[in-house]
């Protein structure tokens, strides 16, 4: 049994993918539906070992867990798929959040109406940053994006019209959808919205991965010069990657502002960018499920061990170092497997 062998070698990703490919379409539908069902029931699982002792479990699921997964998936398009090191990802999160806060407090637009605006603005910001910055490579790109993240935060800090260091308070919650109400005491509704956003993102990435865009990104990541010589319009696809990632960060920001109801520049520091990047690297760059797992653990763990207060970051850091030692490519690394049977015309997903 190849699956058993893979399990023995600790190659979980490959066995999962193989299992999925061998399943019939009906079986896949059942699997996917039940997986989504279990995820949707997550807010009811806050008891026993899973519960977070000090923070509210439902709230933890929305932020950090859900939001981190969403942002890590967005950053994964940039860092994992296309190999562009972006250290200023928080900027797009901030742009989304500020869009919501400004429009929510000064106009009658509600969260759902602001959402497309926030995404669009973040994507445009991605283009504006990307157009000059993406001509650079590697470390140089990292430095420019890092600078961009700081510029956005410091601009917010120094612009009195948007509250300066005081930020913006009284951001409205989303209007209820039918019987589902959004309230801070019971954050299930928020979680379901994040879950839908995560699922949409996963759908998008899986779709693009097996098509022209995914191949272009993959080629750029592996050898940008050759990619261009093989006809890949590298700048165009890098810009796409950048602005799609930015759009997802923006979407997360809009919802975040509408959940915390108060935002300030201090929430959008370099730390957030680094933490999201850590989720991607820890989980397994380029692999959706690795990133989801990595982000879940990195977001959840500090909340779970919050009772040891000051020591928790120490434990957290230690856990990171140890894991990366044993699994340097992340928990679930990207596709390694090859199909020996040369018959499949079915699309290989990654």
């Amino acid at each position, binding site marked *: 049994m190849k699956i058993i062998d893979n399990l023995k070698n600790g190659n979980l990703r490959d066995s999962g993918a193989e299992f999925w490919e061998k399943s019939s379409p009906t079986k896949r539908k059942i699997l996917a539906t039940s997986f989504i069902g279990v995820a949707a029931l997550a807010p009811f699982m806050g008891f026993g070992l899973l519960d977070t002792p000090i923070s509210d479990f439902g709230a933890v699921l929305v932020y950090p867990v859900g939001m981190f997964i969403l942002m890590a998936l967005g950053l994964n398009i940039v860092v994992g798929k296309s190999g562009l090191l972006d250290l200023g990802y928080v900027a797009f999160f901030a742009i989304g959040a500020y869009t919501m806060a400004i429009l929510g407090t000064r106009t009658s637009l509600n969260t759902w109406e602001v959402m497309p605006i926030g995404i669009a603005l973040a994507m445009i910001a991605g283009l504006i940053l990307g157009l000059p910055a993406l001509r650079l490579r590697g470390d140089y790109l990292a430095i420019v994006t890092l600078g961009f993240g700081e510029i956005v935060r410091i601009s917010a800090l120094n612009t009195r019209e948007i509250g300066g260091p005081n930020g913006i308070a009284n951001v409205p919650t989303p209007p209820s959808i039918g019987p589902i109400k959004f309230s801070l005491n019971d954050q299930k509704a928020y979680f379901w919205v994040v879950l839908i956003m995560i699922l949409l993102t996963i759908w998008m990435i899986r779709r693009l991965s097996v098509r022209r865009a995914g*191949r272009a990104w993959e080629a750029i990541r592996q050898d940008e010069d*050759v990619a261009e010589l093989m*006809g*890949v319009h590298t700048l165009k696809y890098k810009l796409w990657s950048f602005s799609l990632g930015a759009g997802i960060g923006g979407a997360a920001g809009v919802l975040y502002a509408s959940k915390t109801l108060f935002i300030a520049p201090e929430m959008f520091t370099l730390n957030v960018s680094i933490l999201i990047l850590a989720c991607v690297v820890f989980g397994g760059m380029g692999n959706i499920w690795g990133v989801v797992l990595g982000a879940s653990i990195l977001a959840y763990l500090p909340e779970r061990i919050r009772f040891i207060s000051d020591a928790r970051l120490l434990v957290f850091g230690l856990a990171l170092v140890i894991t990366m030692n044993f699994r340097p490519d992340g928990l679930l690394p990207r596709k390694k497997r090859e199909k020996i049977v040369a018959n499949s015309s079915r699309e290989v997903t990654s």
Partner: protein
Amino acid sequence: MKKTLLELKDLTIKFGGVTALNEVNLKIYEGEILALIGPNGAGKTTVFNVVTGVYKATSGEVLLNDKSLNGMKRHHITKLGISRTFQNIRLFGDMTALENVITATDVHKKSGLLGGLFGTSRARREEKEGREKAHELLKFIGIDEYSDRLARNLPYGVQRRLEIARALGTNPQILLLDEPAAGFNPAEKVELAATIKKIRDAGFTVLLIEHDMSLIMGISDRVAVLDFGQKIADDLPSVVQNDKRVIEAYLGVPADAS
């Protein structure tokens, strides 16, 4: 008179004080195999790099179908019909052999990212066509059995041939092969020679850099010789073989002949 496909006109490249190519004039006719030979450092790969847009010409120009390629973006040049392989193999290692070739076929696709995302009928059709075309090319080169293997796990010889298949994936008018036989044993070289001829017979024009003389003499329609950035000969293989300057460039001047 045969039609000129690619032309180098007074092409000069300088890197600082070093002149890599010095006023090289060269015509490549449609449907021929032209071998470009010369000692190490003669400027052969530099020619490839100028033609594909990696280097910019200091002066002179490169013409494809009488249209100047100067200042064009690399991916645009590829789209116009020039494709190449690399002296040191540069495949996309983490992709399967098939994906490597499909990536190259993408250059002529009309549907972009959004088409792929929303699965428009054009995107799906092009995706299917690209896949079929890639399989066809792998078969043509004789490595279809490896289509689902990751490129970096393939045997050396297969990798070299996959480079050719990938280059053909862009459906070029002219194919540039940079030492395709490097590291091959005699049997593989014979096989490669047959493949290159097959490529020419399928309607592609081939510009070939190679060191193996028997291979070149066997398949080339014409041979051009570079030495220190200058073209010193350009003729039929049999003529070039006996050219005094070519022999000097390759073997040096014998002491008793001077």
